[in-house]
């Protein structure tokens, strides 16, 4: 229940943050989020800054050049948009670190199972992908050509699809044997 309330609060805060266009209020919002983060505030802020850095720097610099040439540059806009993105990202990271998303989605049994299965399979595949990458790296002594890189990517993708379809059958059998479909 607590997780569900946290999810709804988080979603409401996200919508609210996108309807506010005053720098002061967004700054207060960011301060509040960091205060709620407690001892994690610096970690969350740093993580958020890293996450938004690339896209925001590109947008800000491009805006600076284009609006500067057109004579419409507004420092207020630059601060507003970057502050809002930072606030939204900090809010998301605060939610992710404080709330268990699986609990938050527990209002639907099917959704919880779907989310849990998708997450666990994704993590297993991610690890396998990293192993493939390291294996590919360790077995080459010279630059690999474009054709071989494509073959490698295609083979990996097909391996994962192959595995996915087998896993789907296996998981269905496991769920059936445990009475998941009996209700």
């Amino acid at each position: 229940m607590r997780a569900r309330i946290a999810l709804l609060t988080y979603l409401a805060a996200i919508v609210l943050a996108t309807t506010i266009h005053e720098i002061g209020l967004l700054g207060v919002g960011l301060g509040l989020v960091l205060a709620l983060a407690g001892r994690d505030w610096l970690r969350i802020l740093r993580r958020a800054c890293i996450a938004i850095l690339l896209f925001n720097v590109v947008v800000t610099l491009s805006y600076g050049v284009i609006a500067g040439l057109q004579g419409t540059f507004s420092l207020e806009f630059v601060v507003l948009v970057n502050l809002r993105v930072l606030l939204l990202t900090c809010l998301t990271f605060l939610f992710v670190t404080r709330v268990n998303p699986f609990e938050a989605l527990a209002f639907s049994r099917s959704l919880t199972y779907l989310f849990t299965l998708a997450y666990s399979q994704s993590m297993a595949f991610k690890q396998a992908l990293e192993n493939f990458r390291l294996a590919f790296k360790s077995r080459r002594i010279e630059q690999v050509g474009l054709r071989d890189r494509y073959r490698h990517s295609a083979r990996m993708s097909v391996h994962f699809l192959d595995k996915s379809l087998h896993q789907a059958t296996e998981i269905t059998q496991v769920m059936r044997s445990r009475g998941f479909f009996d209700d």
Partner: protein
Amino acid sequence: MHIPDGFISPQVYLPAYGAAAGLWAYAARRLRATLREETIPRLAVLTAFCFVVMMIMVPLPGGTSAHATGIALLAIVFGVWTAFLSVSLVLLLQALLFGAGGVTALAVNALAMGLVGSAAARYTYRLLRRIHEGFGLVAAGWLSVNASALLMALVLGMQPVIAHAEDGQPLFFPFGLSITLPAVMIPHSLIGIGEGVLTLLMFRLLSQRGWVTRS
């Protein structure tokens, strides 16, 4: 390729959520009708597949690379609605568990990548496979990336018109269509070639294993 948080106005993302919610419900009903017991496991593992394919690099000429999407292959092999649900779930996982991607932009991204990208790929392949299957697959991969990118460029480019202050200053994404269209479409037209080639190679490997049948 997806739009991050904070650059789309509520005037756009809230209606997008409304549209996406209806389509998610429809897609789930369709999937449940055909798969029954296997719906949840199949959708979960295809989501994981989509998640991992998005981490695989598509080699581009000149030694560079970009992330694959695998959406064209999913749409061709499993259908548009399955691909739409899988991509939407990947975006939800990325947003809620990893804090990556945007919650506000989730519906727009899901509609652009999952629905428009899938539909473009599936119907392009079905149209062109009678002429030349290989070309149909490459074109499907290319179009899945570029149709999604086009919708995203349009959504971003509309922001200064939809949401601006009284003095005309933008409140969200600052560039109009004259900038977003070339900025988004030119790199994606190159990335699309890589996705197209990868779609062709993956489809051929799947055919050899008997996963896909030509009707």
